[in-house]
């Protein structure tokens, strides 16, 4: 197993750092899956994570100038590592003005992802800062736990309102209730609702637009058959939704959510070369 990669472009470095920062705000530990073309940060829905799962996909070519991978075996040319994204975030933080950043899979007292940044210095010799981030190599027999999640058969798919607005609404609602209902229909209407003994608050969004899922996506009932005014809803823990919205460092070029009525809230953020999917299970 071998992995070496290098970033020389400052813009790429900053962008990669922002993605890692976002992931680190969503989870303390996740799986980093490396293939020849992509990097994936994966959190599989487990009881420990409260049922949320995450899938973040980056196209390697958009970040790295050099990328060499030798996977577990010829027919399984991938590497799965369990890592604490916060460590990666911390290592990248002080390397933002680096001339180059190299990432390698190494073996110190345990397997590590070693990040070496060449920094500008006052002399002819560059400063080098090296971070050894301990990782766990995930054996092949467990890889199936970290497959790409299938697009669920959603009932409604809708574009989200501006993140900033949505975040401030959710922040305020969090003070009043632990659970929030997100409902939307195929008419571009979305409501965020909380309902407690003391108070009920609903925020209405209109004209959001619905993504056109064609042959790519799968839908249980095509737009023609579903009543456009019929709401699909998911009642979720506000904390989880808030955590997701707060973590975003970059305004996505596209933000949408798919709702499987009373089952799952599937949030999808697309930004240039990065896609981030977050699944929040609905509670009763």
């Amino acid at each position, binding site marked *: 197993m071998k992995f070496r990669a290098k970033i020389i472009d400052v813009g790429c470095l900053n962008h990669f750092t922002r993605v890692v920062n976002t992931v680190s705000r969503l989870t303390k530990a996740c799986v980093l899956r490396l293939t020849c073309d992509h990097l994936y940060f994966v959190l599989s829905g487990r009881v420990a994570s409260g049922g949320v799962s995450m899938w973040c996909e980056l196209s390697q070519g958009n970040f790295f100038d050099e990328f060499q991978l030798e996977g577990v075996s010829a027919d399984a040319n991938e590497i799965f590592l369990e890592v604490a994204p916060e460590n990666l975030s*911390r*290592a990248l933080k002080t390397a933002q003005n680096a001339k180059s950043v190299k990432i390698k899979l190494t073996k110190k*007292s345990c397997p590590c992802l070693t990040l070496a940044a060449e920094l500008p210095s006052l*002399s*002819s*010799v560059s*400063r080098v*800062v*090296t971070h*050894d981030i301990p990782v766990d190599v995930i054996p092949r027999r467990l890889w199936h736990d970290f497959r790409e999640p299938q697009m669920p058969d959603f009932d409604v798919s809708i574009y989200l309102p501006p993140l900033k607005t949505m975040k401030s609404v959710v922040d305020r609602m969090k003070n009043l209730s632990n659970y929030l209902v997100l409902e939307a229909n195929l008419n571009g209407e979305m409501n965020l609702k909380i309902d407690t003994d003391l108070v009920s608050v609903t925020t209405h969004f209109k004209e959001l637009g619905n993504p056109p899922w064609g042959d790519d996506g799968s839908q249980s009932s095509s737009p023609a058959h579903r009543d456009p005014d019929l709401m699909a809803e998911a009642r979720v823990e506000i904390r989880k939704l808030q955590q997701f919205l707060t973590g975003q460092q970059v305004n996505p070029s596209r933000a949408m959510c798919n709702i499987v009525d009373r089952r799952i809230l599937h949030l999808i953020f697309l930004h240039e070369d990065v896609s981030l999917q977050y699944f929040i299970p609905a509670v009763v």
Partner: protein
Amino acid sequence: MDCVATGGNVKVLAKAIHSLSRIGEELYLEPLEDGLALRSVNSSRSAFACFLLSPLFFQRYQTPSDQSFRCKMPIKSVQAVFKSLASLDRSVEKCRIQLNSEKNRLTITLHCKHGLLKTHNLSYQECEGLQAVFDKESCANVLQAQPRLMVDTVLHFPPSLEEVNLSVSSDRVWLRNHVEDDADSSRAMMTELCLSSEEFDHFAVGSQTSVTFCLKELRGLLVFAESSGLPVSLYFDEPGSPVILSVTDSVLEANFVLATLSEDSHPKNHVNTKHPDTEQPPDDFMSDDMDSFLIAMETSELPVPSHVPTSPPRPTSYRKHSFSEEEEEEEEALAEGPPNKKFCSLFFGSVLPTPSHLPNQTMQSQEVLASDSEDENQTETS
């Protein structure tokens, strides 16, 4: 005592005090012929800092008639006087420090714009001197760098990092986070920064060395150095000997002395020979190690709650409490103890010329006060 600092020096004075507050809870003040000495030490006696402000730093500098006046006070109360650095800059024209020995008060008066006077009366406690024994000139290795370099270096390490290891070779300097050798260490993230000797203003390395010390206390000096723009000098020797960081200009000298991890379990104690008679332990301490330097420090101070178990009593530590064994084990189990479990304590010699100090002699300054009151009683009754 009457000292007056004016203009920009008021802010420098304030910054010195803020730097010292990063070390310990108390500020030790001693007006000397050479200048005003402001000192602080941390609770585990592994970090010591001293700012010596020369008479030229002040517009007016008058030492008290009592040549041996020394006092200490909670540093928070002094910090409160110099609270907002920005407003100090804007409004304070002059700062006057006077000693009111009848009332046992240190009066700090800030003369501000528009004729405003802010007077602070701080109570102090007279005490014996506090001085770590160190000798910069005898250190084998000396580095000097612009504060910016030091600050940039330290940035790579998380603020919570306690211990850092500094290694030097003939042309390189490495800074690494130090991780305790225990079960968790293999899972810790390791960071290493490598600098070329060319980045330093001065680079004199006697031999390849590696010392480990506490980073946290260093940050106080770096903040001061960065704002003053003065280069920082680093003096160090072999492991066990303290690291000294120094910032100097024509009117002030700041020294931060940090204990380093010794390689073997016994703290280096070559200064023991200078004060052989200070080996008698004070009542509170049952030290079996070569702790006389610590003892010497303790005997030179009034008994303050320094026996609060701030450091876990591991066998290699310089501090051991007379608690039961169980309590010791319990404290050992606390992983949250201060990092310098194995650090050598710094040697603190008493400033008084008499070498022998038995525990009851710490009461000397108090005894003086007591005897006054006795006299008073006598005069009253007689």
